[in-house]
């Protein structure tokens, strides 16, 4: 979705290349091809900048601020997380549900401006906002430009524990700690309303995620991601996502998703008064 102005011939040619689907196994890839993930946002690609040392905060911790582009699932968590088609160990009911959702992308909560939650990252820039107070780094806020990501996500860095029985929420309850230079975020308490990708990969309120964020150089941030949800998966899953530093000059801009979302008009569907979809 990110574009620039170049000559028509060049742009169309480049665009044609960019929208070509990545080489994938044939069957499941066919569906994913119909769900454009959006073009990646503008990133820093100069190797002289990318390979600079990791910048650090005054307390010696890595500066994870960014802004970053990518680093999560969007179109297909299985593929984007580094697995081959079919390797995501969905329980039968969850696999069936994903298959149903794949045929009903207009039901995706995200496109109605609801939060995408973890580990999803849309093509817009996002950042870790490291909040230092008189007590040190007490919390880290994750801010996504796109408002449908939700207002903010907070990661408590003050040593608190998870509540015993949290009320399920879109972003869950996140506590963070450092393991050397790696930020470890442990989250429980998710609701089951969001989709893990545009395919509709499901989860349950039992989902427990562990993110291990490491800034490996100035321009690259890696998330070693553990998804543990015995309600929907046969075993814990290990995925890997990589974010790239946004291009110089890029920062988060205002984005109010519900302002003029014309979703459904061109496609001929709408939510009725019962909150159910009707199609023309």
């Amino acid at each position: 979705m990110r574009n620039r102005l170049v000559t028509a011939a060049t742009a169309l040619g480049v665009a044609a290349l960019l929208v070509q689907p990545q080489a994938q196994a044939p069957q499941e890839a066919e569906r994913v091809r119909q769900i454009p993930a959006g073009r990646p946002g503008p990133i820093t690609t100069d190797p002289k900048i990318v390979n600079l040392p990791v910048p650090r905060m005054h307390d010696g911790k890595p500066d994870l601020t960014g802004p970053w582009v990518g680093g999560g699932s969007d179109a297909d968590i299985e593929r984007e997380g580094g697995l081959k088609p079919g390797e995501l160990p969905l329980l039968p009911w969850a696999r069936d549900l994903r298959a149903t959702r794949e045929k009903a992308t207009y039901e995706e909560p995200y496109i109605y401006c609801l939060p995408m939650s973890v580990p999803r990252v849309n093509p817009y820039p996002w950042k870790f906002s490291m909040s230092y107070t008189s007590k040190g780094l007490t919390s880290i806020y994750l801010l996504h430009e796109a408002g449908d990501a939700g207002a903010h996500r907070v990661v408590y860095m003050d040593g608190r524990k998870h509540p015993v029985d949290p009320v399920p929420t879109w972003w869950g309850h996140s506590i963070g700690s450092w393991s050397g230079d790696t930020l470890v975020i442990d989250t429980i308490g998710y609701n089951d309303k969001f989709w893990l990708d545009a395919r509709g990969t499901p989860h349950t309120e039992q989902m427990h995620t562990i993110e291990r964020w490491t800034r490996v150089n100035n321009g690259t941030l890696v998330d070693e991601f553990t998804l543990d949800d015995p309600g929907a998966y046969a075993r814990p899953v290990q995925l890997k996502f990589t974010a790239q530093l946004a291009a110089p000059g890029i920062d988060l801009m205002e984005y109010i998703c519900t302002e003029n979302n014309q979703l459904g008009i061109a496609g001929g569907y709408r939510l009725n008064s019962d909150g159910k979809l009707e199609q023309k």
Partner: protein
Amino acid sequence: MNAKHRLVAAGVSLVCLTVPAIAHHGFDTEYDAKKKVALTGVVTKIEWTNPHMHIYIDVADAGGKMTNWNMEMASPNTVQRQGWGRNTLLPGDKVAFQGYGGKVVESHGALSRIAKADTPDKPLFIQGGPEASREGFPGQP
């Protein structure tokens, strides 16, 4: 779509257009990749709104019947990062544009390319991803 539009669309189908990616929702949720259009008209309104911008364009067919096309673009942020400002395109501007019609409401489409009519080879907006091919700050040549 009237006869003229169909003829134009058929011609454009020979061009290697790319299906625009709508980051907020999948293209195929709303639009039909088989309904390619290439039209000229006059801009009547530009909505700098989220989640996506919309440009409204009056298009006359061969018989003079006017249709107001509602063409969806990227988010205002994305478009600004391409170098657009408030005065880049204004109501009253004559434009040549390409895109894809809506699945049900054909004149509610996805914009893939737009240029002022007197400079058709200098597009103001190309949906599809050329930005990702360039380094540095968006909006710069």
